[in-house]
């Protein structure tokens, strides 16, 4: 993975010192509340319902074992012993004191971590494919490009005070696992017909109050031009993005109101001015970063192992887990292993200090000392030999991270909701728990098959409800928690926004509602091979809606 040099380290250290001074001045009454708020947000620090929340950047989701141990240390020392993995591959601590945050940041800096631009109206953490570098369907590893973009975006002097937050995601595989089409800039790394590397650029995607699928503004951008093109997009946005209304300030509204063709024209005109500037990447620039992501020393004989086949035959639980929680690896004899953070009785994405330490040890033992965070709030050991799968499974089961539900109904994406977040209208964690209990039976879940159930406690959409096969959105009606349901969303290559079923349903009925939808699907699907999403796209809303509202209380 990327290793800081003296410059990267110095910048992070200087940011800690700057933030420490900003916090000191705020506590001394020298910095107005409102300004400190905007400054601390640019360093990931929110003040939430009960306590501050610190969001730590995990660039493109990649963590080394020493970083995991440091996160465990921080959870124990400054928090209530656990953290929460987010849909943007970051990690949040929900209980630090404001006064302790500079010390937390100093601790993070010792392991090449920070909280820079994890919040605020600036360029956020660049996210990517959690199977980057190992996926069988990958063209090239997207992480070097993410790292190059990360450095460009970090403390960019011109783009730190944008109209609204700005998110970039990159992918280079036939299956988009990074939800690129719902980002402000989505980058697909491709080869053109001449075999040259480059990018297809999408802009103006986003979730939240006005969910929109991003539009393509360039078919092929040469590899050297990534930063100049991003700079052109950002400059147009910084100049023309709306600042009169926070709900219309994202770039998606500018693209929509301007029209994608006209917007693309403005970007191209700006880009023409800067494409041959210092922003053009040299081969040396690219090579320098790419070499940080070279393949680890894979064992040539990994596929010769026979113990794996024996364990599969001997242990049904292990075999069930491998069917669900492994993904194919480009190297024979290796797998990418998902550790599920969606276990019974645990808030989706939560991980405690002991688990963080244990995951670090397992990463060292079985996966070259690294793990990845997925945007579905799970962890991936990306490079596990097949002979190690059984002991890894046993170890994960021992720490509650071996629920065999990846991609199934109980693998819900879920925001912290009303339990933590001051923006939220409704509980999400408690609903996730109820759904978990109702569908805990794995045979039933396997029968239901591939399912993305995404849930947000408010329309800001941190739980990606708009792109869930089933989406659930918490709404407040006269102080009561109600839930709007959408069907048919997807953040993959076939990205689409879910359609609303109709009136929202009550807290008491939301789990029933999900059950009704699932039963409808099981009744109307053509075969077990037709997924919920495919089935919905074929039959449409009517059968689902009919059954949904026949049995539950709904309010217009």
């Amino acid at each position, binding site marked *: 993975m990327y290793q800081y040099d003296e410059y990267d380290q110095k910048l992070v250290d200087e940011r800690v*010192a700057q933030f420490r001074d900003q916090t000191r001045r705020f506590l001394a009454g020298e*910095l107005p509340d409102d300004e400190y708020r905007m400054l601390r947000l640019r360093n990931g620090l929110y003040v939430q319902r009960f306590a501050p929340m610190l969001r730590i950047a995990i660039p493109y989701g990649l963590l080394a074992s020493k970083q995991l141990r440091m996160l465990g240390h921080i959870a124990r020392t400054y928090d209530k012993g656990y953290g929460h993995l987010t849909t943007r591959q970051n990690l949040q601590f929900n209980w630090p004191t404001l006064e302790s945050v500079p010390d937390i940041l100093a601790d993070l800096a010792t392991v090449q971590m920070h909280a820079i631009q994890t919040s605020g109206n600036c360029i956020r953490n660049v996210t990517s494919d959690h199977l980057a570098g190992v996926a069988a369907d990958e063209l090239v590893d997207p992480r070097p490009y993410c790292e190059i973009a990360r450095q460009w975006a970090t403390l960019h002097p011109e783009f730190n005070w944008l109209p609204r937050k700005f998110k970039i995601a990159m992918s280079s595989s036939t299956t988009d696992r990074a939800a690129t089409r719902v980002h402000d800039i989505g980058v697909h790394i491709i080869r053109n017909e001449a075999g040259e590397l480059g990018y297809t650029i999408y802009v103006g995607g986003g979730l939240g109050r006005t969910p929109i699928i991003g539009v393509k503004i360039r078919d092929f951008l040469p590899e050297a031009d990534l930063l100049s093109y991003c700079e052109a997009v950002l400059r147009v946005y910084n100049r023309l993005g709306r600042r009169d209304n926070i709900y219309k300030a994202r770039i998606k509204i500018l693209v929509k109101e301007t029209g994608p063709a006209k917007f693309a024209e403005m970007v191209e005109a700006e880009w023409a001015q800067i494409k041959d500037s210092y922003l053009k990447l040299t081969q040396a620039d690219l090579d320098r970063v790419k070499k940080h992501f070279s393949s680890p020393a894979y064992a040539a004989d990994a596929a010769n192992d026979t113990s794996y086949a024996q364990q599969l035959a001997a242990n049904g639980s292990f075999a069930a887990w491998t069917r669900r929680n492994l993904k194919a690896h480009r190297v024979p004899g290796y797998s990418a292993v998902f550790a599920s953070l969606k276990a019974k009785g645990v808030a989706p994405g939560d991980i405690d200090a002991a688990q963080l330490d244990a995951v670090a040890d397992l990463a060292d033992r079985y996966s070259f000392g690294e793990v990845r965070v997925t945007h579905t709030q799970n962890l991936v050991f990306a490079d596990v030999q097949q002979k190690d799968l059984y002991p890894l499974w046993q170890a994960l089961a021992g720490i509650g991270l071996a629920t065999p539900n990846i991609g199934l109904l109980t693998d819900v994406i879920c925001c912290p909701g009303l339990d933590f977040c001051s923006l939220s209208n409704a509980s999400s964690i408690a609903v996730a728990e109820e759904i978990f209990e109702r569908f805990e039976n794995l045979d039933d879940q396997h029968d239901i098959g591939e399912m993305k159930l995404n849930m947000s406690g408010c329309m800001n959409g941190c739980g990606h409800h708009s792109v869930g096969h089933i989406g659930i959105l918490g709404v407040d009606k006269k102080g009561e928690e109600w839930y709007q349901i959408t069907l048919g969303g997807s953040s993959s290559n076939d990205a689409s926004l879910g359609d609303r079923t109709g009136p929202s349903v009550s807290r008491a009925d939301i789990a029933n509602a999900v059950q009704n939808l699932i039963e409808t699907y099981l009744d109307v699907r053509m075969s077990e091979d037709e997924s919920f999403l495919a089935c919905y796209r074929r039959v449409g809303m009517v059968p689902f809606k009919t059954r949904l509202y026949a049995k539950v209380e709904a309010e217009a």
Partner: protein
Amino acid sequence: MSTLIRNLRIEADDYVSLADDAPLPTSGKLIVSHARWLAEREALLASGLSIGIKLPNTVDVATVLPEIAERPLIELDFPSFPDGRAYSQARLLAERFQFKGELRATGKAVVRDQFQFLLRCGFNSFELRDGQDPAACLAAVHEFSVPYQQAADHAEPVFLRRRGNAA
């Protein structure tokens, strides 16, 4: 009266901002609004006075460049603390259009916590917001010693240093 930092020194402000309805004085250095400049260009030029222009942050500097390029001073506005539009205006004026006069930042963002960014985007003159400690603003110039990006301040960015180290 707010403090002026110019070329990284605390200096007396020799310019006076002239309200749109105020009569033209017979001497001194003036800053007039872009609107007044457009409306009274001939008379203002004929006065022989040294006249700078204050641009709203909504103006496309490329469009108005012919009208303002020869002015000794251009003032760009930050009407609120988080409104960063003038950062882009400043970079275009300083880098693309090579404006060599005084490029002045004014408004609610001209504080120590944005000072280094302002400097990096090409401002060479800062009308500090009331209550700002000028010494602290000048110290903030050194808050970050190794920028990732090349910008108008010509600080050597990290990627150039790395290219140099590799050579």
